[in-house]
């Protein structure tokens, strides 16, 4: 089941909210939410529910053992075995065919369990927090199960850290304000997904075979905007759903396309994943205290690999590792003195090149697209002009809404006249929500891009 399906919006979510709000007590509420989360997960592929339950059981038991063990050497062994099993599981399902392909062995007809990368990282966050002593081992398997399997975040995150969620698992006060802010955020995410991301997906698809220079640029830019509205829309919906059930999760995006350096971009894009790698890989490796270059390259190699079993993702990760090193050792003084607009353009172009590696099925195709982007011999054709002018309002909206304009206008109105602004925004959300539903009824929905990871 996906968030942008009619069955989720009009059946699963309202029924879940209703059941959750009417049952008494934190324990019963958690039971209801856990059962609903298992149902949500099992909706399309019930078999993998076993894998999820085993993952919860494995990490629950391991953390209890870590909590009981006093000998530091033994704790270390238990910790590393637990991490190894989590990673083996991830590797077995996500990377087996990739590894077989390297050795020329035929692939297996196996589908990737939805959300595997996300719930494995959540589980590792829990085990690492218990090992470091940041959090005690969870005695209640239901609470741990809810942390890993909560349907608001299991399919594509955000990868909420265990120490951030720990207290909320035991007790979450319900408030109307939090609930309605969750509903608004969910609607905002749905609007981003259906009215923007899915429309950019159509432009991206229409220009896939275009060979002109302008066509290649519009093709790449449409993906750049699609993935932003797709994933930030999903994250808004996930965080919004969390709020409806009393959870508060940190934002996953902070206007990444308004960044003025690549380092700045990664502080704003998929924040939960960057933070996870920083806290659980980069800092334990030594951070910037020693072997900085090695640590950065390891982290970015792993970030690329995490996104998928394909050389293009690995290259994409190393590309960012290389740029971050370049910024640190060479470009930093220039970026600090250059006008912001130049820094902004520099960031956008480098990020755009990164997306070309990301969306291309192979490295050759990526370089072919990059080649088309500098193909001055064939600057444009009628198809690209038709697509561009036909979708001009979409591109204008995309550029405006991917920046900080929307939030700035919202805060300006809210500061001046909160009541009036609330009424106007509520009306707009309802209006665009209805338009979204019309789009969802009228066409087959597009799955979220990050489901593939």
């Amino acid at each position, binding site marked *: 089941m996906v968030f942008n399906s009619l069955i989720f919006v009009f059946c699963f979510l309202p029924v879940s909210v209703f059941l959750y709000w009417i049952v008494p007590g934190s324990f019963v509420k958690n039971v209801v939410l856990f059962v609903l989360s298992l149902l949500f997960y099992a909706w399309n592929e019930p*078999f993998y529910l076993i*894998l999820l339950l085993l993952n919860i059981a*494995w990490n629950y038991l391991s953390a209890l053992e870590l909590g009981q063990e006093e000998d530091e050497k033994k704790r270390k062994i238990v910790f590393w075995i637990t991490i190894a099993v989590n990673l083996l599981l991830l590797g077995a*399902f996500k990377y087996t065919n990739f590894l077989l392909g390297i050795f020329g062995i*035929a*692939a*297996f*007809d*196996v589908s990737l369990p939805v959300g595997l990368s996300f719930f494995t990282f959540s589980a590792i966050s829990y085990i690492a927090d218990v090992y470091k002593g940041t959090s005690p081992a969870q005695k209640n398997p239901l609470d741990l199960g809810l942390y890993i399997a909560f349907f608001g975040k299991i399919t594509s995150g955000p990868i909420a850290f265990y120490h951030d969620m720990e207290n909320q698992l035991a007790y979450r006060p319900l408030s109307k304000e939090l609930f309605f802010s969750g509903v608004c955020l969910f609607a905002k995410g749905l609007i981003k997904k259906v009215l923007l991301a899915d429309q950019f997906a159509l432009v991206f698809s229409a220009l896939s075979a275009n060979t002109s220079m302008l066509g290649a640029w519009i093709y790449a830019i449409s993906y750049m905007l699609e993935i932003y509205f797709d994933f930030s829309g999903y994250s808004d919906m996930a965080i919004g759903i969390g709020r409806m059930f009393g959870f508060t999760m940190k934002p996953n995006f902070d206007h990444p396309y308004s960044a003025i350096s690549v380092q700045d971009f990664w502080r704003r894009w998929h924040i939960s994943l960057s933070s996870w790698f920083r806290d659980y890989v980069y800092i334990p490796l030594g951070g910037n205290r020693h072997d900085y270059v090695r640590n950065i390259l390891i982290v970015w190699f792993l970030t690329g690999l995490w996104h998928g079993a394909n050389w293009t993702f690995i290259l994409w990760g190393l590309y960012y590792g290389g740029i971050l090193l370049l910024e640190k050792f060479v470009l930093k003084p220039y970026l600090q003195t250059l006008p912001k607009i130049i820094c902004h353009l520099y960031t956008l172009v480098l990020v755009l090149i990164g997306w070309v590696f990301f969306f291309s099925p192979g490295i050759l195709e990526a370089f072919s697209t990059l080649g088309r982007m500098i193909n001055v011999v064939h600057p444009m054709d009628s198809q690209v002009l038709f697509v561009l002018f036909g979708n001009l309002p979409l591109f204008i909206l995309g550029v405006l809404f991917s920046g900080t304009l929307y939030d700035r206008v919202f805060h300006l109105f809210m500061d001046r006249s909160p009541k009036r602004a609330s009424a106007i925004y509520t009306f707009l959300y309802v209006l665009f929500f209805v338009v979204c539903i019309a789009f969802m009824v009228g066409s087959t929905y597009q799955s979220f891009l990050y489901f593939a990871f």
Partner: protein
Amino acid sequence: MNKNILRGLKVIVLILFVFVFVSVYNVPQDSTKKFEEVLSQTQKDLDLSVMVQQDNQMIRRNLGLDPESYEQIVYYKIDDVMQANEYVLVQFKDHSQQKPFEESIQKRIDDQINLYEGYAPDQVQLLDKAVVNVQANYALYAVDTNASSLEAQFLSSL
């Protein structure tokens, strides 16, 4: 909970992990054999002389499949409207094509049964025993007295 009990439970969970992994990976692998090789091995020593290879238009019309979307596809059909004998061998471009292929073939079988029901019970019987076998990147559909032999040779050809 006692440490030994914890460890015992963890061993059980690990065994269950292995069980899940084996169950998931106990599926056919993509065949690296060439399409022509699979086709000739599948047809080997069988009398299929009455079957005529059909063109792309017939694949679209009779089976509701787009031949361009597959790596390769062949469709043979008996040149007699009173008989339902036919077979299809397909090589998929990717595994997502398996399910739509099976659905189209099932629809074809149902349509054929509706067509022959009432006046050709022997053909309905043949259609009831139709073979639809999907093996990773290859699939076979056969309605023929030789269907089981075709299936056996198809499996050994991969």
